[in-house]
């Protein structure tokens, strides 16, 4: 009997082994071909330089990295990317959280508001960037138009090297608020209503409730959103590619790391240098993520 059971157990184990591998095979084959091997190829490529006409790879050792560390435009792009992220991430999270809290109740028009705030999420970034570029147009754009009407001077929204990153980040914030809001709404649903009822009995104000109940209890979701948002913001490309022309005076002060990667890899066909830039991006993202994970103990509340 025991032997039979054991036999059955090993049969089961064998069949789980066979079915298991059969089921993961398509995914794993694809993952190796599309992702795992390419990671090593990119690392490898970063030590090479493409020969003339894209023919032949010449091993150049650390030259691409040396060139990168001496390349002012790479450092500037890194700074630009950070500046973009520093504006986009906190504002998109804070605004989305406030909206989610306001909408997390039974009220008239709740789903209409939700639909509207989420709308930019379903628009193609190329179209979004195009319309914002039109709104920002310094001569004929709606924004300057409104400023002039109110008696203010026109602003060079996307051609002033010192401030353009802010207005590009505004496009990013506008685009992603709805997404963050939906995630926060999902998180808020998990908070038991009793907490608020108890706080009401104690006479706590809405603001107090927000900081003492909502924020701590939603902090795991905030942590998650901030980690994924920073990673996404560090990879900003679409809006810069669409809004910034190379002859724009603010171009140098706004081009992002991924934009540089794209330009070197596919416009100038210098894949070795493009690969080195990606390795820098990988390193930066990893460092930021590790720091965030270390810091989470300080502010994220797990119960």
């Amino acid at each position, binding site marked *: 009997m025991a032997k039979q059971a054991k036999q059955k157990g090993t049969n089961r184990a064998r069949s789980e082994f066979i079915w298991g591998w059969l089921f993961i095979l398509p995914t794993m084959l694809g993952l190796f071909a599309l992702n795992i091997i390419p990671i090593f190829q990119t690392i490898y490529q970063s030590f090479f330089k493409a020969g003339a006409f894209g023919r032949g790879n010449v091993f150049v050792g650390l030259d691409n990295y040396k060139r990168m560390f001496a390349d002012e435009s790479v450092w500037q792009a890194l700074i630009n990317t950070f500046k973009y992220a520093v504006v986009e991430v906190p504002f998109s999270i804070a605004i989305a959280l406030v909206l989610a809290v306001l909408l997390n109740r039974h009220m008239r028009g709740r789903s209409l508001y939700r639909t509207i705030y989420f709308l930019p999420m*379903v628009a193609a970034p190329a179209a979004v960037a195009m319309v914002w570029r039109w709104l920002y147009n310094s001569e004929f754009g709606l924004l300057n138009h409104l400023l002039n009407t109110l008696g203010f001077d026109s602003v060079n929204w996307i051609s002033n090297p010192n401030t353009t990153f802010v207005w590009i980040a505004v496009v990013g914030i506008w685009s992603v608020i709805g997404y963050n809001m939906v995630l926060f709404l999902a998180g808020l649903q998990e908070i038991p209503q009793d907490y608020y009822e108890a706080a009401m009995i104690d006479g706590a104000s809405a603001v107090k409730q927000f900081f003492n109940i909502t924020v701590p209890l939603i902090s795991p979701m905030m942590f998650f959103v901030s980690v994924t948002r920073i990673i996404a913001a560090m990879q900003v490309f679409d809006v810069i590619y669409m809004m910034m022309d190379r002859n724009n005076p603010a171009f140098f002060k706004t081009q992002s790391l991924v934009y540089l990667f794209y330009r070197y890899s596919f416009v100038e066909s210098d894949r070795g240098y493009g690969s080195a830039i990606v390795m820098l991006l990988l390193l930066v993202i990893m460092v930021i993520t590790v720091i965030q994970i270390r810091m989470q103990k300080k502010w994220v509340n797990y119960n």
Partner: protein
Amino acid sequence: MENRKHINSILLHLVLIMGSIVMLVPFLWMILTAFKTISESTQMNPFVMFPSEWRLDAFESVMTKMSFGRLYWNTFILMLGRVFFAVITATLAGYAFGRLEFKGRNLMFSLVIFQMMVPVQIFIIPQYLIVSGLGMLNTSFALIFPGLVSAFGTFLLRQSYMSLPKELEEAARLDGCNIGQTFLYVMAPLTRSAMVALGIFTALFAFKDLMWPLVVNTEQSTIPLSAALAKIQGQFAANYPELMAASLLAVIPMIIIYLFFQKQFIQGIATSGGKL
């Protein structure tokens, strides 16, 4: 007390309506500009926000310059292909990772997680070289290629399978189902909502993808909407009505789909985005 509540509610709506206006103005301006003439679009009279006459000229001109039928089709194939492959492969793998015990499982699953933590740009050059090596640049296959499998989808489906009760599986097994049958008839149908979430998520991000289509497909006839918009920007220069008409035509189908299925969209993003 009642009165104060009333005032609070009005204030709340005021804030939300102002926010809604900010969210909607870019879309409204896109629409208004698309129906104007060039000279109307650059007129600086703040009291003339609307076109004097709702003209379709910009749309007509854009539709002769860009073959929208082709662009919609290319975009549709890109989305459909990625959804099809991602949902099938992720459902299979998600079940194995979530419900079966086998040697090598944890190692393979850690590779899935690893893929999700790396910025996608690291894959692009080698993926491009594969597609070009296969002689498949400028095809629908090239557009779909990076989405043939989905590490994120695998993770999402695994979570979904793990949340199902064990008893279901045991009952099926006692009825004489083998693992394949248990999966097909009992387990897979129960994760339909996760599949829908993954499908929506995949479709949306395929629609929004810009860099990959720009890299692999350069011929007019094979590009999707996103890349087409990027290309016309230089060509149409300062013709804002045409640029806005093209943008509008590019975003309208997805917006209509969204308005019809907004519940599924928001639910899908909340479940998939939240697990990421």
